[in-house]
């Protein structure tokens, strides 16, 4: 049987193919990735796009949690301060309801409670990064302003809007409660109760003072119930942070599984390819042009 007398094209094709494999292996090792372009593994490349989208989303949720956490913490601690102030007002009111106190004593108590009233107004007008936290979604103006014509002494300028921020692909978290729900709700109006306490102290009727103290107590209780919202929100955020941290790790592992280079295997392949390349080159070098002409004399 006659054979192909020219082996070089086959050998050179083999060299090119092996060199290509060497280049591919080296690229995988250098990048640490088995999918460097979509055609390397189209299915994996598509999954990596999804993975990148999910990872980016999880990272963003973590950033969003970081952003709203500060505001919620600030609101939570402010409500604690409001509760403390109300407790202080209750103590003063109880003292004023004591029949042994004279008018001058009650007037002094009124001054102190007016100070608390002023403090409460400041607390209700908490701002975080320039936004009024308890103004609903009307965050660009103070939630409450002094208003002598109002029975409670203040007017709520905010609205009843609430915001929800997505902190997980299936989770949105309400981030605020409007002041109207916290400080001037019909079930526990903080400002009205303080104003009533001041008015009753100024009137000097111990029974009325006692009623006003009870009203402040009710407002405080109501506020405490409402402020649970912020504690819960913080707990949810912490829990979601923990989940996102593990989700991010999981996604990173998936990314490696889908598109990461199997380094031991690739290095082994590279060694094989390099050996094969060297052997082919050696074969070409040793393919001496031996033919019958050289032996004819």
């Amino acid at each position, binding site marked *: 049987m006659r054979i192909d007398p020219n082996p070089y094209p*086959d050998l050179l094709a083999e060299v090119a193919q092996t060199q290509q494999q060497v280049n591919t292996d080296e690229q995988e090792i250098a990048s640490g990735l088995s999918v460097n*372009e979509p*055609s390397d593994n189209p299915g994996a490349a598509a999954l990596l796009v999804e993975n990148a989208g999910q990872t980016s989303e999880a990272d963003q949720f973590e950033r*969003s949690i970081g952003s709203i956490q500060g505001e919620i913490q600030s609101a939570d601690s402010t409500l604690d301060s409001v509760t403390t102030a109300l407790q202080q007002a209750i103590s003063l009111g109880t003292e004023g309801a004591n029949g042994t106190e004279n008018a001058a004593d009650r007037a002094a108590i009124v001054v102190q409670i007016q100070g608390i009233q002023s403090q409460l107004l400041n607390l209700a007008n908490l701002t975080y990064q320039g936004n009024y936290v308890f*103004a609903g*979604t009307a*965050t660009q103006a103070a939630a409450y302003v002094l208003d002598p014509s109002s029975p409670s002494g203040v007017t709520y300028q905010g609205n009843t809007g609430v915001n929800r921020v997505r902190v997980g692909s299936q989770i949105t978290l309400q981030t605020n409660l409007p002041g109207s729900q916290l400080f001037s709700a019909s079930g526990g109006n903080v400002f009205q109760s303080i104003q009533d306490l001041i008015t009753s102290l100024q009137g000097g009727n111990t029974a009325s003072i006692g009623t006003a103290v009870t009203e402040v107590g009710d407002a405080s209780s109501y506020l405490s119930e409402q402020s649970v919202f912020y504690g819960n929100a913080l707990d949810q955020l912490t829990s979601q942070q923990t989940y996102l941290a593990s989700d991010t790790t999981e996604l990173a592992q998936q990314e490696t599984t889908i598109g990461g280079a199997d380094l031991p295997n690739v290095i082994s392949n590279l060694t094989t390819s390099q050996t094969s390349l060297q052997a082919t080159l050696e074969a070409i070098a040793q393919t001496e042009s031996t*033919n019958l002409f050289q032996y*004819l004399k």
Partner: protein
Amino acid sequence: MSSLNASLATALTGLIAEQGAMQVTTNNVANVNTPGYSREDPVLVTSDPVAIGPLTFGTGVTLQSVESIRDPLLESQIQQQTQSQGQFSTLASALQQTQANFISSTSDIGTAISNFFDSINQLSSDPPNLSLRQGVLTAADDLATSFNTAANNLSQQQTSLDSSVVQTVTQINQLTQQIANLNQQVSNLQNVGESAGSFVDQRQQAIDQLSGLVDVSVISANNSLTLTTANGVPLVTGQQSFQLQTQITPAGLHDVYSQGNNVTSQITSGQLGGTLQARDQEIPAIQGQLDTLAAGVANAVNTVQAGGFDLNGDAGTNLFNPPPAGVTGAAASLSVAITDPSLIAASSDGSAGSNGNAEAMYDLNNQAIVAGQTPTDYYSGIVFDVGNDTANASAEQTASSSILQQLNDQLASVSGVSLDEEAANMVRYQDAYQASAQVITTINDMMYTVINMDTLTV
């Protein structure tokens, strides 16, 4: 009765025939590395004998012809495989370039989509914040830029492929003209019974080159060849070549014409087939997908934007300039319509601190707003399609190259020049030549003897 002169003439035919055979070997050796050369074989036949009386004497040897050793079946298979190789090589190369637009990076479309929606989610945590609003505009601009860049790259590639179509048609016309000329030379020689081996080799090589450029069907008849494309578009008939032309279309691309007919869609293989496939099918399909994605995102965002309120409490206006109707060109023309960050309609109730509409906008990221899929799902589908098409074309190219290599090996085992074989032939012809020469010398001696018989003394 035989004569010494007859013997001399017979011996002389041996000398002439071996010289001719030696010339064939010399030519084979000289062309050992000539691409497309088929080795030649001298066809030696016994000269017609003469009958003298009751006896019949041979009259020597005749070099009847010089035959090129070829295998038409293999040559035909090589042509077909060369067409596939040309097609898939061009297609794979084009798609490799195309898929560069979809390699994961910090600025690829998938990342830009994620960054855009992430910026909206960030804004929803502090809706009045102008820095965050500016962040949304910047991310929207980056998204538009990534679409513009990919669309422009695809357009440029299409233009470049179009130039290649024109160049390839020029090459095809040169080759068909060359083949027609060679047809004439082959026909002229074969009609007078002469060997046209080297012209046939040249013609075969030109056909192989043509097969790399376009699908070719070869019909051989009456010492001549007719070439058409697989779909019957005439290329060469005997000594006449049919030139292909290119004409620019309203879309600015060139179609291929033959004798006034648009034959673009009839060219399916070879480099031209691969180029047309990439230019007219693959790239437009990807452009269409990008347009759908860009228009889907832009329209959905604009719709949500219109349902909300900006920082001034006014109804939202378009965030992106509306994509063209029918979405064609949406990716190339995508742009952000506003420059004032306060115009982002994050609010759902008109108050500055509301983030309801920003959240609705962010939720688009996970809604089926692009042909029934989420933006990221749709984009990952594009990446899969591009990767899959590229991988398939590369695999086809590798397979056709491998088959072509095997076929070429087989053909070389039939038609290739073996120096060992030629050396052996050379020795054979030399020996035969020496023998014939020796016979002539002997006859010469015998003649001398006869001529000088009277002077010879016994």
